[in-house]
């Protein structure tokens, strides 16, 4: 069964304290892996797409990496405004096309 698991469920950091969020996946026919940021009461906001193992993408304090079984979202020197839920999603081959499967997310709290 296709599955996406994110850990930890919640992460509390001090401002400037770097850390990583994990997304492990088991899917057949991976087409792409996506990272989104979701603020309370809002829709997911696209951050990165990764397509193949070894690929890395960076944007400001965030860096996403991908292996054959998992992806990491590294946060370097986070600020309070980075507080949000970070969602990982994989796009995989479905019966009629492609389906997107989301993980439950990691809630990040960054304290000043």
């Amino acid at each position: 069964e296709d599955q996406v698991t994110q850990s930890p469920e919640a992460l509390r950091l001090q401002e400037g304290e770097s850390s990583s969020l994990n997304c492990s996946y088991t899917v057949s026919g991976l087409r792409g892996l996506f990272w989104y940021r979701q603020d309370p009461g809002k829709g997911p906001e696209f951050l990165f797409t990764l397509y193949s193992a070894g690929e890395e993408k960076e944007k400001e304090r965030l860096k996403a990496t991908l292996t054959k079984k998992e992806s990491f979202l590294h946060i370097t020197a986070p600020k309070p405004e980075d507080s949000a839920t970070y969602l990982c999603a994989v796009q995989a081959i479905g019966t009629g096309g492609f389906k997107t499967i989301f993980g439950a997310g990691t809630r990040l709290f960054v304290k000043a």
Partner: protein
Amino acid sequence: EPEVTQTPSHQVTQMGQEVILRCVPISNHLYFYWYRQILGQKVEFLVSFYNNEISEKSEIFDDQFSVERPDGSNFTLKIRSTKLEDSAMYFCASREIIQYFGAGTRLSVL
């Protein structure tokens, strides 16, 4: 910056009533999606739509649900007879390459 627009932002309905959730995707996008997120739970895929037909749907998307692109700009999700468990945030998304989400419609079924 172009965005996916959803209306209404909050819909309250009685159990058994029909609701239509509306979305205006980004204009040059060809792929459209509906997702739902029950409070405190993960985002769940409902359906994808391309070339005026459903390309993929999940087990959640049963006969009570339907989608339509009635006029080339709007993309709607209809729930025929709402149940209490349909209460959730419903997100529309569209993509050319990157998938962009709307702000969502909160559906409350009483």
